[in-house]
């Protein structure tokens, strides 16, 4: 059952069935998993320096399970032509600048791990890559998608409504025209076999397609197999199954980003939506329906005008009212502007509150992977066993370090089953590519990120 902050407790069709009949045999050890968690707009480096006494406070309960890395130069952005928000966000998990409006400069770290450990694909029935998020600004894909294939294309379609993510993970697909007629179902399956065969040809050695296209068709083939599994192999939904999650009440798609002008939203609306998404994503991992992917909490350069009281524990941290507090409407009244107005010599109260709130929500998701329902076969939690990378875009809003715009970007990782140090806040002082390649080495992946001829500088201080 979902905890959610919503009023209703939500259950799932097929869930009991899935837990008792997983898509694959029970593993002897905790599986290799890797996820990226992105939050928008970042944390200015001076605020990171305050450690858990400042905006990082919500991460403190998880401190011994995280390695917080400061002073990581995410993407080399000390040259002209870099947009801290978009380029920084697209590079958050690739450590390379983007290569077009909807393409990253290379693969994201969790996809590199996926390919390294599951070169033949994931076990049947799994969602190969699960991408979800609660976000609004969508002018360019790299603002909110954070899983990329090595060729820079998005690794899967993002699910931005909790209900969509639920259906992507747990939903049984319906077979058109099949009905309950067993004969028709069998015939329809025969169609699928023929179609599968045809797709298989186009991924094989005799395919007329080039490498990029073959892989695109191979993705299609994987989805057909998944469809086949769900349409024909799964048992039917139980009659007493609980209902689907409720429909999302906040804007999505085009209405969520009216011409870059931003939207009005309350803290409760945002938090409720996100937590439902986080719960569902965590549940997908707990039920071993997915092992790789990314989750986004607010897009890069997000534009929202938030209202509502923000409390943490017993304390009231801040009263959000971005537009009124900035005496502005439209894009200029959005919380984004607090980042542009960041000044180390001032209190930056509104920015601090937003950043603190984001850490609270990130911690919520991480906490879901560390609870009693997240025990792996080795007795440790999913949070302990998985490689989870938490990152963001430039946190300094262009005002802090003109030479290295994207230096000091917030990064944190989990221990990945004891492979990396945890329980520390570390001044890493390294390029993002070196950090990520060191992580790949730690995960036993031989491929590396970044330009092929780039010498790797191992960052041993992050390894245990």
């Amino acid at each position, binding site marked *: 059952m979902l905890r959610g902050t919503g009023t209703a407790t939500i259950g799932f069709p097929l869930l009991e069935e899935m837990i008792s009949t997983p898509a694959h045999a029970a593993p002897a050890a905790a599986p290799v998993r890797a996820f990226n968690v992105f939050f928008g707009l970042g944390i200015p480096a001076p605020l990171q320096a305050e450690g858990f006494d400042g905006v990082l406070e919500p991460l403190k309960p998880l401190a011994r399970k995280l390695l917080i890395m400061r002073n990581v130069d995410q993407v080399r952005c000390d040259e002209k032509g870099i947009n801290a928000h978009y380029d920084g966000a697209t590079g958050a998990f690739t450590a390379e600048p983007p290569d077009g409006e909807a393409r990253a400069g290379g693969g994201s770290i969790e996809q590199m791990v996926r390919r390294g450990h599951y070169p033949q694909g994931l076990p049947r029935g799994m969602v190969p890559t699960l991408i979800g998020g609660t976000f609004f600004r969508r002018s360019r894909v790299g603002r909110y998608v954070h899983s990329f294939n*090595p*060729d820079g294309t998005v690794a899967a379609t993002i699910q931005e409504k909790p209900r969509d993510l639920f259906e992507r993970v747990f939903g049984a697909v319906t077979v058109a025209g099949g009905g309950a007629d067993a004969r028709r179902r069998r015939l*329809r399956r025969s169609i699928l076999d023929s179609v599968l065969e045809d797709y298989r040809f186009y991924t094989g050695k005799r395919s007329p397609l080039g490498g990029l296209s073959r892989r695109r068709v191979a993705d299609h083939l994987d989805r057909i197999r998944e469809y086949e599994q769900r349409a024909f192999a799964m048992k039917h939904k139980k009659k007493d199954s609980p209902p689907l999650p409720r429909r999302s009440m906040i804007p999505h798609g085009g209405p969520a980003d009216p011409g870059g002008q931003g939207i009005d939203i309350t803290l409760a609306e945002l938090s409720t939506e996100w937590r439902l998404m986080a719960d569902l994503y965590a549940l997908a991992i707990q039920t071993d329906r997915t092992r790789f992917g990314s989750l986004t909490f607010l897009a890069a350069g997000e534009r929202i005008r938030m209202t509502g009281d923000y409390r943490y524990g017993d304390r009231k941290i801040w009263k959000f009212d971005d537009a009124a507090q900035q005496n502005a409407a439209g894009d*200029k009244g959005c919380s984004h502007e607090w980042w542009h107005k960041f000044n180390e010599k001032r209190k930056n109260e509104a920015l601090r509150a937003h950043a603190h709130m984001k850490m609270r929500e990130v911690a919520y998701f991480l906490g879901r992977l560390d609870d009693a329902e997240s025990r792996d076969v080795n007795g440790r939690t999913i949070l302990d066993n998985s490689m989870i990378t938490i990152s963001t875009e430039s946190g300094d809003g262009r005002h802090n370090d003109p030479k290295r715009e994207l230096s000091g970007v917030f990064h944190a990782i989990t221990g990945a089953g004891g492979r990396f140090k945890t329980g520390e806040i570390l001044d890493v002082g390294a390029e993002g590519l070196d950090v990520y390649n060191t992580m790949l080495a730690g995960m036993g992946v031989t491929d590396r990120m970044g330009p092929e001829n780039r010498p790797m500088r191992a960052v041993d201080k992050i390894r245990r």
Partner: protein
Amino acid sequence: MQPSRVPPTWVFLLAIVLVAASRTRVRAQRVTNDLRALYTFEAGRGKQVLDRSGNGRPLNLTIEKPSAVRWLKNALQIRAATRISSRGPATKLIDALKRTRAVTVEAWIRPAHARQEGPARIVTISSNARVRNLTLGQELGQYDARLRTSTTTVNGIPSLSTQPGTAGMALAHVVYTRTSSGAAVIYVDGKPSGSRTLSGHLTNWDSRFRLLLGNEGSNDRPWLGTIHLVAIYSRALTAQEVARNHRAGSTAGQRPSAELVMQKRQQFFEKRIAPLLSRHCLDCHDSIAGKGGLDLSRKASAMKGGKSGRVIVAGRSAGSRLWKRVAADEMPRQGKPLSAADKKLLRQWIDDGATWSGDLIDPVVYARGAQGIWVQRLTVDEYIETVRSAVGVDISEPARRLLPQDVRADGFSNTAYNLGVDLKHIEAYAKLAALTVERMNVLKFTARFSRSRKLSTDDTMRQLVEKMGKWLLRGPLEEREVTNYSGIATTVASGGGDFREAASFLIEAMLQSPRFIYRIEYQRGDGSPWPVNDHELATRLSYIIWGGPPDQRLMQAADLGQLGTRERVTAEATRMLTDPRAVSQSARFVTQWLDLDRLANLKPDPGRFSGFDSVLAGDMRRETLAFFNEVAWKQKRPLSELLNAQFTFATPRLARHYGLKPQGPGLRKYDLSSVASRGGLLTQGATLSIGGDDASMVTRGLFILQDFLRGRIKEPPPGVDTTPVPLKAGLSQRVVSEQRLSNVACAGCHRRFETIAFGLEKFDGLGRFQQVDEHGNRLREDGTMLIPGDARPQSFKTSAELMDLLAGNDRVRQTITWKLAQFAVGRPLDAADAGTVRSIHQAAWKAGGRWTDLVTALVSSDLVMMTRTQPDIDKGGKRQRDDDSK
């Protein structure tokens, strides 16, 4: 008369030089277009015969028994039976010829005698005496050519022979050509000596065969004699071209012609040097920045040099200031020094004569690296149109409901690299296929392809699969496909089903097939551009012009191999452009180009724009589409008039919004000839709302620069505060902008685009015209416009003058061409496309610059008639290795 003081010996030598020079001038150049393999036998020794075509990976040949041959000067004499063959299959030839269905085999030879028979193999792609793809041989006193097609035997019979007595012991130029439509001709010494029609396609060619000279693969059809030259082209040379190669002589292929050398140097400049200069130099040394008085973006100014004099001395890097500063890492001043590899390229370019191609180095051309080749999935619109055209069912409502929306990338939502699939697609395709079949009259549909209603897979069902599949999947089916889909009929039959049920499931399966969902093309090759085959071309034409599949007439032309010529493609395009689908497709282009879907989500601040709602936004969209339709289709005007045509379309509500007097209900045409402020796309709400509530000059200027002037501006440098400045009394948008432009750090970039938006200041964030803003500031509309690549700004006094300037500028016209080209090919264009797009642009605007001119020039260009190919193995390419890892 004064006696000559020139000694007789000098006169003689001069005469020799003049004669030689005159001979050099008149000697014909060999045809090089579509040359796939060339052997000129210059090695003089050894076992290898090198492929000198310069096309793709060389298909070198090995002499099996070196003792059987004798190397002569620029020739190889075969004195005893041996095989001279490629190590592996002649893949690059087989693939290319299968695609084009056309070929030329050319040989300069001197037979050892006229008694050779078999025919004795001169050039062959085959395995043994009974099975072949292609052979040119000698049969006693005749030359004989065999080509295997779908209508010949596997041995290529019937063959085509020359006249008796044409094969003797003299040096002979023998050429065999076959066009895609089946016209085969054999020439001897530049003259036709035999011809026949040889119909059929080449899809049955065996991809395992090697290329051999002088013998059969089975070593039992030797040919003896001397070979001076062998060339193979992937098209049929014309009679004039054959004569030209004959005039060029047997040794003409040996050294690169001056033309070829120049061509290669120009390519070197385009591919290597222009990107290098663009990347490292033009930020400071282009026409606008011009630091040190040096403009390296144009040939003339680059060669002229800067304030410190010449910087490039052609042929001498040591004397070139450009090289010396770069070599010493003194340049570029900003950014990293050039890598050793880049320095080497620069030095080589100067030492080789600093050849320059074209006039302007346009940085936008080099902004992106080479684009990969992604298979094109049908967009939602294309899927709907394809189902409608293929089976006559309108599936638009459920398709738009079930299929995920295509996401916009790089300005268009048909960008192939971003057209991925997820589970929802698969489920939707399955449901839509079933739904489509439900709505069809299946028996009536199948009757188009087969009269039989027998459910016999051995007999009629295979024929139905073959014929119906060809229609639904936009080209002939391969044997494996026929077998695969016929299996469905077998399953239905074994389950007690009937013909109707089998046909229904067949159609349902085909509607989910990769060849239906994707536009599958042959993409593998040697990395060079190859001609697309006829069915691929037919599909390209129809999706570009109609956004849907080929019609019967186009399919028929493809079946007959008639689409190989630009003339025929032009004729088809002309026909297709009269179809209403062409109009719909042009509306899709405009919608994506100007991002009109954005209007549906527009939510301006209600406090400032109280009268706005989604209906008005919809009216703006309809205005722009109707306006485009009027210019492009009804009046058939040059598309540059989109910028300043003196009319528009408005509903009464939109008319009032614009300050026009409503003329009646519904969307009506309004004459703007007496409305000075309006006229053209950029004075319409759909584009004016791009600047947001505050009508940002930065956003509007960038929009015009990027979408109408094909300009490129890098993101602001790190550390720049980009927070918009709030307006107030005394501080209008114009004033804020001028303050920004007075800042040297900002002006370098902002003057390239922001001043254009001065001409739009009187339009508010939703396109209403006003003289004073909400703070009481008087607004202006005068300004200047800098065209990318130009050093001098052009002034305008009013927005109308700005629109006229834009409409009259070739950069705007170029941008329209580029945008349409990108939309057509479904990927961002890169440097390798630049030359072709330039040609398209010139042809289209010379023809009138109308929509129809642009589309016709586009589809008859190499951008559409050729395709990029991808080598199978790229050892150095990380990306390729990744691709192949799965």
